[in-house]
């Protein structure tokens, strides 16, 4: 770190590729407790994102992230479109005008994203959603940030993974899966999973630097 605008675009390309590589997997998770479109919708969304930001290397990070958010909102649809879209738009506000993102920025970005998702979706931890991955990740990164970015990132990612896996054990209270009630137990949440994929992609890239 810091991450330049060009590097940010590379990270976003990695996100697109990893989501795309997990398209079937995410869709399959969604077919168990939703409507079998999560991987399809997100892949479509991040593909559009790449088309929009490809040549934004000379723009500030705020503009890039805002474009990501707006593109997701207008292409993904369903529940995850507005949620991830809001998350990225809020992230963009945090680094408005900035040409690079440092570690402190990154933590603020995560916080703004979570805040956006919770405001939009009104979900709390433990309701089997994206929040179950993102919130523990943020808690852990904040607790450990004095240990250095690498350790903090690794611990954060572990917490995210644990949160994602915990969604198997709980009843869905938000989103389409909530209609299943008890029957949602035993299935991992697709949104919690895609969120982990995104966080891991970012961490991998930053850790390599």
């Amino acid at each position: 770190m810091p991450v330049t605008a060009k590097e940010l675009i590379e990270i976003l390309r990695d996100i697109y590729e990893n989501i795309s590589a997990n398209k079937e997997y995410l869709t399959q998770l969604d077919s168990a407790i939703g409507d079998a479109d999560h991987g399809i919708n997100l892949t479509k969304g991040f593909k559009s994102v790449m088309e929009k930001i490809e040549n934004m290397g000379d723009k500030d990070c705020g503009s890039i992230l805002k474009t990501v958010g707006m593109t997701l909102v207008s292409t993904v649809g369903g529940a995850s479109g507005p949620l991830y879209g809001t998350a990225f738009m809020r992230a963009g506000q945090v680094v408005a005008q900035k040409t690079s993102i440092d570690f402190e920025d990154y933590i603020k970005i995560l916080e703004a994203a979570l805040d956006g998702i919770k405001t939009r979706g009104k979900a709390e931890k433990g309701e089997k959603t994206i929040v179950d991955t993102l919130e523990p990740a943020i808690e852990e990164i904040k607790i450990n940030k004095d240990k250095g970015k690498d350790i903090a990132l690794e611990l954060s990612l572990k917490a995210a993974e644990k949160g994602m896996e915990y969604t198997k054990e709980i009843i869905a209270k938000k989103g389409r899966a909530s209609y299943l009630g008890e029957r949602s137990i035993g299935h991992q949440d697709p949104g919690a999973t895609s969120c982990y994929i995104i966080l891991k992609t970012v961490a991998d890239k930053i850790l390599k630097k």
Partner: protein
Amino acid sequence: MKKLINNPEFVVEEMLQGMVKAYPQYVKKLEGYNVIVRKDAPVKGKVALVSGGGSGHEPSHAGFVGKGMLDAGVAGNVFTSPTPDQIFEAIKAVDGGAGVLLIIKNYTGDVMNFEMAGEMAQTEGINVASVIVNDDVAVENSTYTVGRRGIAGTVFVHKIAGAKAQAGGTLEEVKAVAEKVIKNVRSMGMALTPCIVPAAGKPNFTLADDEMEIGMGIHGEPGTMRTKLMKADEVVDHLMSKILKDLPYNSGDEVAVMINGLGGTPLMELFIMNKRVSEILDQNGIKVYKTFVGEYMTSLEMAGGSITLLKLDDELKELLDAPADTPAFKQL
């Protein structure tokens, strides 16, 4: 997959084009958007009504665009909420200066996308209000969950709020009467067969040859029970028992009835359902004011149906009876 389509990717666009070609006297399409608006939109000084959701529920919602009902119907991909930019365009296109009411079916995706669009419109100075329809009694309501789904009862909201707007009601008044409908409308459905989302190419769930699902949602969401095939009367008895005790509807009440086909069920079967519905209402001393039998809120070619009861008062009766002229709902 046996469907009269060309390319699963373009079903929504082609459908909307075919619709506009069929009904130029009623509607036009916003260029570049999957949005159908009244031919004479924006109607100056009238509160505008915007609804929409995933496609596959035709005639909902674009089929109800016209005089006395909706000003715009926004069509998402099949079974997928439309995105805020589409809804935002709809709002801008129909706002006649008196404000816009968004009629949203209660699905997380729909609610969030419509809310975002509403916020976008507000920042442009358009007065936007919204109501959320949640008539499906199959889903247990609870403060901890997202609550009930919105299904066929939504069409009564379109009709009655539409009549209020047509009669010159303010945004507040139109919203208030829409909420009155929502408070007084209950539905429940069932399915005999699944349907196939064109892009998926295969059924969205399976039911054995001798099985049916009671309480199933309009996207094939699970219901309250999967059972062996039952006679029509038994099915109706079960749905009605759930619906009647939910509001509850009491002896002396007057109701509007909607027997809604999900797409693959012949009209014959809907009338057979209605025979039993009317018997049950009769036994309970509930008076049928008006009945609607047909396809209003479908699930592609799914076989099955839903029953909707709307408890009426004088205001709702008058608005229900007001004329409407739309492709899929006409009243003289």
